[in-house]
């Protein structure tokens, strides 16, 4: 990819707003198109929402500490677990993966930004708008309360007259736009902006997993969008898609939701697999074991993710034939997943493993994820699912894969990449102390929940009966939250300490293998002074230790000037932010049936689209290797 080889055309100059050039302050963040800044915004925002979701979880566990507790009324309790689930899935863990992808996909493939920088900014702002919209429900009449999968007809106007459900439907709809455009952006970036020599089979596994994830998003979100629109139509305009009295079939919602919802699970876990596949090789000082198999099993998992949705619906009476089919497809997914676990162990085998905090989290990921995978296979057996479905056994299962799996993997990523983000090192000893609280607390909370489910405790109940064997397991589980809370506070201390540590990290503190470690920490705006070239799979490793790799002959690239004419950096823009604000306000208009406001904002969105389209090329060139930098604006 030769950036800036062609001379730039002059700007069309029909823009409504000047391209801003702030480099510092609030405006620079509102108008940024830098993938690294947007990545950090994603990460910070998702941690903020994770904090909200943790408070909700804490209240849930306090309510369930003892039978007959009255801390939370049923109505508030329903809002708590609904918002906990919605937040963790849509506003915390999934965008955390997107944040890492934003920051590291361009760095790992040796690019200067994503393919569509303004679209990327729009993706972030519309995600933030969706989160803000959802959380404003607490102040505007009550949060959604029908569970994160919001089964019809609990969401119909007659069964749920408050506007919490509208917040859920419209919030997910606008948040989904951001997810979708970012996925398309990543696909184009990965296919078209790789560094010279970076063939597909040399891509870092994290990039591969983000590619698979992005395709999953593109195919999985449309069914959700349809289902959301149907409910919005039902509630706003009185259509009858899911109204049983009018012949509506509530089961259709479940099919549409889970055709999205199961791939969504992989949309969360595949980036986590990617992070683990970067962390383990680096700290084992060995290449990933079975790279092609890792890639293929990731693709296979993604593909099969669309063929298992009804395993969430085994108890809805699909009949033995359908249940058998979806049971078998679900079992089949266990095979590539098992292969991945073996390959991570194979990567460590024969290595020289450094147990940093990041590696601790990676090992905890393996532990938790294997346990969650085992209970996943159990739940894929419809006869057992008939007992365990919708009980705390399921709650334990998905917390082991989503929390103990994906979240622990992302924590491994945070500890791994913190020096790259900041140039500073986190305190490893404090990190490990925090880890043990976090890990042990997690297991104290969720291990007993398996038994609560087997003892007959349904999920989503605001209280449970005394004397049927549920007191102890719930009390232990609640006690675990305090241990995990201590872990969270120590991690926060660890992060604060990290930000105050001196900038001693250097480019490559872990002796890592991939290209993001080739540049400065934090990376400069244009990522690389010189276009990196991938001569082998672990491109940086091959450059550092050619005798321990099989690099291509570098002479093939000799004399090529990939940054001819300078590195083109995209210009900032107001439009992504403005468009997101327009959609946010329009959403309130639709929610409160103020269609005049919605129409005005609709026009505003069209105007921002126009401004965006004709804003002109913008941007400037940097010439890091020339003594004088010509900030040639056009």
């Amino acid at each position, binding site marked *: 990819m030769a950036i800036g080889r062609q001379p730039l055309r002059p700007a069309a100059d029909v823009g409504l707003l000047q391209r801003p050039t702030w480099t510092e302050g609030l405006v620079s963040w509102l108008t940024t198109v830098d993938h690294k800044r947007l990545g950090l915004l994603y990460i910070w925002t998702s941690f903020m929402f994770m904090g909200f979701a943790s408070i909700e979880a804490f209240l849930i566990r306090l309510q369930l500490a003892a039978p007959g507790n009255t801390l939370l*009324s049923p109505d508030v309790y329903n809002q708590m677990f609904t918002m906990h689930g919605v937040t963790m899935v849509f506003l915390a863990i999934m965008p955390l993966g997107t944040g890492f992808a934003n920051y590291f996909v361009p760095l790992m493939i040796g690019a200067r930004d994503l393919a569509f920088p303004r679209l990327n900014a729009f993706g972030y702002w519309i995600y933030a708008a969706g989160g803000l919209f959802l959380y404003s429900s607490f102040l505007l009449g009550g949060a959604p309360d029908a569970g994160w999968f919001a089964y019809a007809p609990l969401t119909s106007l007659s069964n749920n007259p408050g506007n919490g459900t509208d917040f859920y439907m419209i919030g997910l709809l606008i948040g989904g736009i951001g997810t979708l455009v970012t996925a398309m952006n990543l696909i184009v970036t990965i296919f078209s902006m790789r560094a010279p020599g970076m063939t597909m089979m040399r891509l870092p596994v994290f990039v591969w997993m983000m590619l698979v994830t992005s395709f999953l998003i593109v195919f999985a979100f449309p069914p959700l969008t349809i289902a959301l629109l149907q409910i919005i139509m039902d509630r706003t305009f009185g259509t009858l898609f899911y109204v049983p009295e009018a012949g509506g079939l509530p089961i259709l919602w479940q099919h549409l939701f889970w055709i999205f919802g199961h791939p969504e699970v992989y949309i969360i876990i595949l980036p986590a697999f990617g992070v683990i596949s970067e962390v383990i090789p680096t700290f084992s000082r060995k290449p990933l074991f079975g790279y092609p198999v890792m890639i293929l099993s990731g693709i296979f998992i993604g593909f099969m993710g669309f063929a298992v949705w009804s395993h969430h619906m085994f108890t809805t009476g699909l009949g033995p034939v359908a249940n058998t089919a979806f049971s078998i497809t679900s079992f*089949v997914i266990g095979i590539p997943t098992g292969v991945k676990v073996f390959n991570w162990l194979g990567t460590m085998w024969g290595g020289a493993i450094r147990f940093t905090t990041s590696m601790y989290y990676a090992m905890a990921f393996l532990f938790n994820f294997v346990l969650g995978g085992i209970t996943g296979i159990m739940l894929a057996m419809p*006869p*057992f699912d008939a007992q365990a*479905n919708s009980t705390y056994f399921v709650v334990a299962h998905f917390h082991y894969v989503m929390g103990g799996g994906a979240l622990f993997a992302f924590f491994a990523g945070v500890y791994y990449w913190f020096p790259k983000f900041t140039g500073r090192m986190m305190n490893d000893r404090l990190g490990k102390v925090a880890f043990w609280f976090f890990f042990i607390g997690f297991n104290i909370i969720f291990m007993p929940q398996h038994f609560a489910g087997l003892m*007959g405790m349904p999920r989503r109940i605001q209280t449970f009966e005394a004397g049927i064997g549920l007191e102890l397991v719930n009390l232990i589980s609640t006690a675990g939250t305090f241990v995990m809370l201590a872990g969270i506070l120590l991690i926060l201390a660890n992060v604060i300490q990290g930000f105050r540590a001196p900038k001693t990290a250097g480019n490559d503190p872990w002796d890592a293998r991939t290209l993001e470690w080739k540049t400065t920490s934090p990376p400069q705006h244009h990522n690389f002074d010189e276009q990196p070239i991938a001569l082998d799979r672990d491109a940086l490793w091959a450059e550092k230790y050619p005798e321990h790799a099989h690099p291509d002959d570098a002479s093939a690239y000799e004399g090529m000037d990939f940054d001819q004419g300078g590195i083109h950096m995209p210009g900032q823009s107001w439009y992504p932010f403005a468009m997101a604000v327009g959609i946010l306000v329009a959403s309130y208009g639709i929610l409160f049936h103020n269609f005049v406001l919605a129409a005005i904002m609709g026009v505003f969105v069209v105007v921002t689209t126009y401004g965006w389209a004709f804003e002109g090329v913008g941007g400037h060139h940097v010439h890091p290797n020339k003594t004088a930098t010509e900030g040639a604006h056009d």
Partner: protein
Amino acid sequence: MQTHRWLRPAGLLSLLALGLSGCEFAGPQSIFDTAGPIAEAQRDLFVWSYQLSWIVVIGVFGVMGYVIWRFRQRKGSDAIPKQFHGNTALEIWLTIIPVIIVIAVAVPTVRTIFATETRVVPDEDAVIVNVTGYQWWWRFEYPELGIVTANELVIPTDRQVVVNLDSADVLHSFWVPRLAGKRDMIPNQNNQLHFTADEPGEYYGQCAELCLGAHAYMKFRVIATDDAEFDAWATSFQEAADRTVQADPQIQQGEALFATKGCATCHTIDGYRDDVRVGTPDFPNLTNFGLRNTIAAAVVDNTQANLEQWLRDPQSIKPGNRMPAVWDTNDPNADEEIAAVAAYLRSLGVEPATQTQASIGANHGDR
């Protein structure tokens, strides 16, 4: 899944050996404490998968522990390990192992699916019950016996029970863990579940699909009796319309209040005064209420005190439910009238001499 029955003691032992929660696994709502063939097959399948999972746990965590210990970087050593990328033969084997485990789970799974989930034509002597879920109670209709009741499903032991599941509002799920796994109750969809109780007893049931409000309190009981007792119970319902109110003046007062305080607007009692139209099908039918073990959808036991509290302040027993508090808190007659209505309801279906015995189920209500 008869073949794995021998594994059961070992399985339960290893479950206990795991002992992570330190609790016992018997319980009125435990999936382990089975009392019928459906729940037993489901439990056995779980135990089989649980035992297989130990192979995975020991294998994976064993290798993981070994690798962590054996290949940790030694102090002072900075040597770069051999950079191998894979091992085709090993990778093929590592794919075959999960395939074998999956097959070992899949075969009994499919057999159990067809054994437990196939829609049945009811046996000749089967008891058929149409179950309708309401927010937040259960309507049980025995179409062949002409009985409609609520929240307590009385069945004979050793006879097939076929329940046809429907919902009047949102989704619910019918679940009696000791007898059978759950089946969802979905409007406009005829779901069926069948099971058999092996022994007399009182089995706990609970709604297992979020239905908001008092979802946590949407419970019920299945009371299994022998054939003779079941027939007596059914006859008692069929004759309920012909019975007269007991002579006790308090009960007589309660009977009158049942209409004047508005209870009869919603609740049906078979044979309640021919000139008064009582109840609608969308509220719990209270015929033979005195035979019930529990009130408020199995939330509390059917005692005089509990019933009085339920009538006085329904929200205090079952937060979120839709039963109105009929008496003002400062109504001077409230205590007397509530006691009378409770006494009347508890007299329904009960012979005066046996009125102190709560109900027939009390004999089995030891769980």
